[in-house]
């Protein structure tokens, strides 16, 4: 974590408030804290904010404010960042079919780490993960808290079409990918839970700061779990 946050220009219509240079819970907590503070106030010219691992990207209207005056406006917000509520207190239990057609890289990832596929599943589904950020593609959730014995370097070549719901491991991170998209990570499983749906409110179930826990299900129960999850979300939303 830096002693003082860095305020960096991202062109003439955005700036990044960078709190550190690591994937770290306290750094991310500062990002989320500033994000909430800005959301609760109205600062001239701010259009939208994007919280990421270690920085908050602030998009602003250069016809309303400037880099210099927005930096001035942000100073009081940076002084006292409350970190008492690091998480959102929301926890999600996410069903996963590990291996087989839904997780084609499970066996290779296990072998590469001198583990059995069953050990990988146990270690992956026995811890709580924290959502650090959502992005790259719609609803893609970057999760922290992976058991270090499962860390696996990213593939050299990215593959084009990871299916929606893919659970993957890349480096020391694991992720839940919600829509079809490219991925250079290892695909170990897939969830029937629809974390992103453009026509639903909320469109995206997960928020940074949420807790996620995975539990293994059999591939035969894919369809029934899919329906059960959809019904649960419908009830919760209504």
């Amino acid at each position: 974590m830096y002693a003082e946050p860095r305020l960096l220009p991202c062109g003439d219509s955005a700036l990044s408030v960078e709190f550190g240079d690591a994937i770290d819970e306290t750094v991310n907590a500062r990002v989320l804290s500033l994000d909430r503070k800005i959301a609760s106030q109205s600062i001239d010219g701010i259009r939208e904010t994007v919280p990421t691992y270690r920085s908050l990207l602030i998009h602003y209207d250069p016809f309303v404010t400037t880099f210099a005056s927005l930096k001035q406006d942000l100073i009081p917000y940076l002084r006292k960042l409350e970190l008492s509520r690091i998480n959102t207190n929301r926890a999600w239990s996410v069903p996963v079919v590990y291996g087989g057609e839904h997780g084609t890289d499970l066996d290779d990832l296990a072998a590469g780490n001198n583990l059995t596929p069953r050990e990988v599943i146990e270690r992956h589904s026995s811890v709580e993960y924290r959502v650090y950020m959502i992005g790259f593609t719609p609803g893609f959730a970057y999760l922290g808290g992976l058991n270090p014995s499962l860390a696996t370097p990213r593939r050299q070549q990215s593959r084009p079409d990871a299916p929606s719901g893919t659970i993957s491991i890349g480096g020391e991170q694991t992720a839940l990918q919600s829509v079809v998209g490219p991925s250079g990570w290892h695909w170990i499983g897939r969830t029937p839970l629809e974390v992103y749906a453009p026509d639903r409110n909320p469109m995206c179930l997960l928020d940074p700061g949420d807790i996620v826990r995975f539990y293994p299900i059999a591939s035969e129960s894919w369809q029934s779990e899919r329906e059960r999850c959809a019904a649960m979300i419908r009830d919760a939303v209504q």
Partner: protein
Amino acid sequence: MLYNEREGRIMSRLIITAPGIASIQDIGRFGLQRYGVAPAGAMDAGALRRANTLVGCPVGTPAIEIGPLPVTIEVAGPPIRIALSGTPRTLSIGGEMAPLDQSHVIRDAQRVTIGSARGGMFSYLCFEGGLVCESQHGSGSLDQRAGFGSPLRRRLQAGDVLEVPAATAWHNERSAAEPSAGPACQDVIRVILGPQDDYFYPETIDRFLSTTWRTALSSNRMCYSLDGPLLAHAKGYNIISDGTVKGSVQVAGSGQPLVLLADRGTIGGYPKIATLASIDMDRFVQIPPGGEVLFKAISVEEAQALLRTSGARASVTLREASRYPRINPTALASANLAGLATNALDPAAFD
């Protein structure tokens, strides 16, 4: 004749006979980048504004964004009024050549043929009264990955039929905009260094700024890749992934610079050496594959001052192009002709 009850107006039909690479785009969808949804929207926002203004629409009204390939459409029903702005290309209406940056009336069964882009990439076909679109989080822009786009959640295809309001007055009145800056080949595009310019040696930054780059064939709405020398990273090529903007210049692991655009990923993991200045964005996106580009670094203060004095958002200057000397009051009113003389620091000036 078709009366749309919900719209409360008489409609005509637009039949897409040859779709090229076209989609419906407006000013973009904002507020969802925190969920990984990029804004999408018109690549050349200035050309969209020009086409909007010519047909009397509020700036940012959805239009058909037409890529480099030819497009053919036909009208079935009452006359409609159109305008086409953007890259130079041919426009023919009912077999007769018609100028760009000017409003035209298209009558029942008339065919409109839009030729290939000449030296640019994108054009905007806008309609008086707009297109019938449903706003999805504030925009009708197509974002296929996120599942948004109105009225279709995909690019246009042959046989698609779109509803367009009938023109309100169909005499020969026309309005025309001052022509745009023309193709941007071998042009200088201004950039602001950072936010990760400290991931590069000063010599590498000099190299980035002194090279004449060529846009790669793979360029698309997500990103334009630049061909030229590979840029070495000083501290490795993995940063802690963070947010991207339209115009971020990422340097990939291979050393190739990539300029992220309207359909980009909202988060990127490669260092960003620089960001395009907004004032040059529209010229940059019009550079065709193989086109040349040279970057020049300016300060963020300079970029913002240039933007404010440019009138970039204030006005599209219209001139009278009617056969009879008559002013189109709707187009004039929405053109905000006084905009160039207003105080750029006053947000109300751009409402």
